[in-house]
């Protein structure tokens, strides 16, 4: 719920899309090489591969009557640039993002990592992070998960992964 929101009131969310290109390799240190090969298939190829990722974020909050905005776009774009694009764009997620030293950089885990990096944005509240790994695969992580002890990601149909 946005600040001061109540049931029946109109609720506005701002959506913004960003793009970055990065490489990754899906490989779990908890599995044997044979199991990794079976599970991840070509995504386990030793030298990795890349995607053009699209990150779509949604923010809720009050529309400031002076600006007509939930969040100043220049502030939001600068924040995402620093927190996400500089850290991920044209990089290897496995080698250059500390969170993926011990965690497989699936797009499920990437959604959670992006959410954690962006959730401190103020004054709007981060509601949702949706990441398209390709035009056919997308993954979502919502603020609802913050109160969910399993912290599960959901796919674009809203099903638990």
């Amino acid at each position, binding site marked *: *719920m946005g600040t001061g*929101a*109540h*049931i*029946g*009131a*109109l*609720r*506005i*969310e*701002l*959506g*913004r*899309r*960003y793009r970055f290109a990065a490489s990754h390799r899906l490989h779990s240190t908890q599995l044997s090489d044979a199991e990794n090969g079976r599970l991840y298939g070509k995504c386990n190829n030793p030298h990795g591969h890349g995607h053009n990722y699209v990150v779509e974020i*949604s923010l809720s909050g009050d*529309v400031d*009557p*002076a*600006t*007509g*905005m*939930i969040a*100043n*776009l*220049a502030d939001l774009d600068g924040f995402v640039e620093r927190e996400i694009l500089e850290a991920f764009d044209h990089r290897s997620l496995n080698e250059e993002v500390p969170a993926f030293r011990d965690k497989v950089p699936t797009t499920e885990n990437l959604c959670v990592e992006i959410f954690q990096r962006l959730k401190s944005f103020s004054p709007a509240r981060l*509601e*949702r992070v949706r990441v398209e790994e390709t035009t056919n695969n997308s993954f*979502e992580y*919502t603020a*609802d998960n913050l109160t969910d002890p399993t912290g599960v990601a*959901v796919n*674009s*149909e*809203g099903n638990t992964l």
Partner: protein
Amino acid sequence: MILLTRKVEFSASHRYNNPDLSPEENRRIFGKCNNPHGHGHNYTLEVTVAGEPDPVTGMVLDLSELKKILEREVMQRMDHRHLNYEVPELAGQIPTCENVAKVIWQLLEPKITQGRLHRVRLYESPDLFADCYRNGAKEART
């Protein structure tokens, strides 16, 4: 419950300027969106209606009826118009994506009598959009 979505596109111009702020403040806050003669976008509007299919027609509402409502309420008001000067419902508001989506919601909600308006999503560009819902009626995942 079924969610039904219809999409329409319109083109309009706008300018961000708050007369209560100095020219310098307007420039700082709104950047090039403050350029004096305005600029324009191809907007894409997605209107989602929630309801149960009628057992006789199989429809939540007649799409041709929704098309007429969108033509009358949105297209005739906003298509090829200047949002600051030609849309009275936006008078006194900065015509941001957030405010335009809210005005579209307010125009459409009373006109949709079969099913109920669930979501208005307005894209100003493929990378910037605003969603409008009523609290308590929101499906978080789209």
